[in-house]
């Protein structure tokens, strides 16, 4: 579990994170959502220690992280896996070597044992025949999967994903979302996903934190978000007319005002008008 207490971070005079309190639960996909510039990336970078917050504390399973010595912090970092927005694979290493890198660095396993573990995690992310390919030779979706494989190869306790769906088509995005969700449950990882993709929110949002101008504006799950009365959140998630209509339909469905497929169809397509 990760606990964030009164976290504040700014750059110069500009306040980016303004006293955020949050809890990231074990075995769940904790989503940080918000529009661009809302502070979600800075919040995530504070969580993993790439930015030092001005105020506040972060606890990893009760251990205070922000004021830890570099050596102690290293120990926590060994339990963290991260999937970056651009995957951040090492260009000079092939897929197998990329995934093997944390094992090379932090274990004294034999090559055969490392290779076996790499094959296991690549199988797990459905990448069986890409071992010898270089990052430049694989697609965006494959890169993300290699990134996930590298992140989980050391069995981390915490998995951070920064915009895992950026640059991916909806179908591949869904595959990545499902994979992250399955791995979270399978390994009982505390997963933190930074996203503004509404499909992800609805698919994997066990615990959702909505950020707006550096503040935590709302917290809930993917069942509750659709019925939220928070205006700022509604403006964010129902930005398009299509999504507003979808929300209206859900509301009507929930209130029992529509009860069959024909009514639903009419709401979507309008009344069934026959040509004259």
């Amino acid at each position, binding site marked *: 579990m990760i606990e964030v207490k009164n976290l504040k971070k700014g750059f110069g005079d500009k306040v980016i994170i303004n006293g955020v309190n949050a809890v990231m639960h074990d075995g769940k996909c904790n989503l940080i959502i918000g529009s661009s510039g809302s502070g979600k990336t800075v919040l995530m970078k504070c969580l*993993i*220690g*790439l930015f030092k917050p001005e105020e506040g504390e972060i606890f990893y399973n009760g251990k205070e992280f922000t004021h830890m010595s570099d050596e102690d*912090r*290293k*120990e926590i*970092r*060994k339990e*963290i896996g*991260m999937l*970056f*927005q*651009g995957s*951040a*694979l*090492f*260009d000079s290493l092939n897929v197998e070597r990329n995934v093997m*890198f*944390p094992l*090379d*660095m*932090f274990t004294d396993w034999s090559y055969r044992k490392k290779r076996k573990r790499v094959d296991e995690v690549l199988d797990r992310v459905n990448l069986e025949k890409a071992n010898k390919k270089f990052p430049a030779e694989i697609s965006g979706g494959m890169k993300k999967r290699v990134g996930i494989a590298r992140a989980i190869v050391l069995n981390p306790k915490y998995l*951070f994903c920064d915009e895992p769906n950026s640059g991916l088509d909806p179908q591949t995005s869904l595959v990545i979302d499902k994979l992250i969700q399955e791995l979270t449950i399978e390994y009982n990882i505390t997963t933190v996903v930074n996203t503004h993709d509404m499909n992800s929110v609805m698919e994997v949002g066990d615990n959702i934190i909505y950020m707006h101008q550096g503040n935590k504006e709302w917290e809930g799950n993917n069942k509750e978000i659709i019925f939220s009365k928070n205006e700022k959140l509604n403006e964010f998630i129902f930005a398009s007319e299509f999504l507003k209509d979808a929300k209206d339909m859900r509301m009507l469905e929930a209130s029992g005002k529509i009860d069959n497929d024909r009514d639903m169809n009419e709401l979507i397509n309008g009344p069934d008008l026959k040509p004259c």
Partner: protein
Amino acid sequence: MIMKLFHEIGKFLLLIRGMFTTPENWKVYWKEFIHQCSDIGIGSLGIVAIISFFIGAVSAVQTAYQLVSPLIPKASIAQIVRDTVILEFAPTLVCIVLAGVVGSKIASELGNMRVSEQIDALEIMGINTKAYLVLPKIVAALLVIPMLVVIATGLGILGGRIAGVGSGILSAEEFDKGLKQNFVPYNVFFALSKAYTFSFIISSVPAYFGFYVEGGALEIGRSSTRSVVVSCVLILFADYILSALLL
């Protein structure tokens, strides 16, 4: 302006200080060191060989052109070629070329790693990125560049001999005689002192510029250019200081 300079120097010193920690895994660091040795050494051998050979050849021809007095023995040409190659051409000129070849490579490699979040990825794994990415480059440069300078010295003198003999300026015997005349071993020490100093500049300055890049492709290009310019200026400055101190 001056405050900015101090800020940059301070940041550079912190980068250097940050490199000295116990490696997470000696084997991986050793591999990276060998990889850098090959990259810097073997990768630059071709250009170093071509440049030093022709510099030697040109200096032989130009020295002969300027020594018009019949009172000066022709063997002096070899002596002048030898000393200029050892004292200046091999260490300084080769290192200026290496600042362009190796320096821009180091800056753009680290800059690209920074921009594409590869350095962040290493940090999150708990790796000291300064130690893992910068230290092997500097140590490899300190080992390999002086070797390149030694090779450049040999090839420069060989180039001078081939050009001098080939163009009929002097005979092979005269050149070899001149080569042995008044040889001062201290000059080799001086050349190697320069080579070590320049190696540090060539590797650490571009590493600093690349490591702290912010932005995108444009900034990587800019930092690469800046690193080469600053390295060249520092090499010339250090060249003067070392000459004033050691000669």
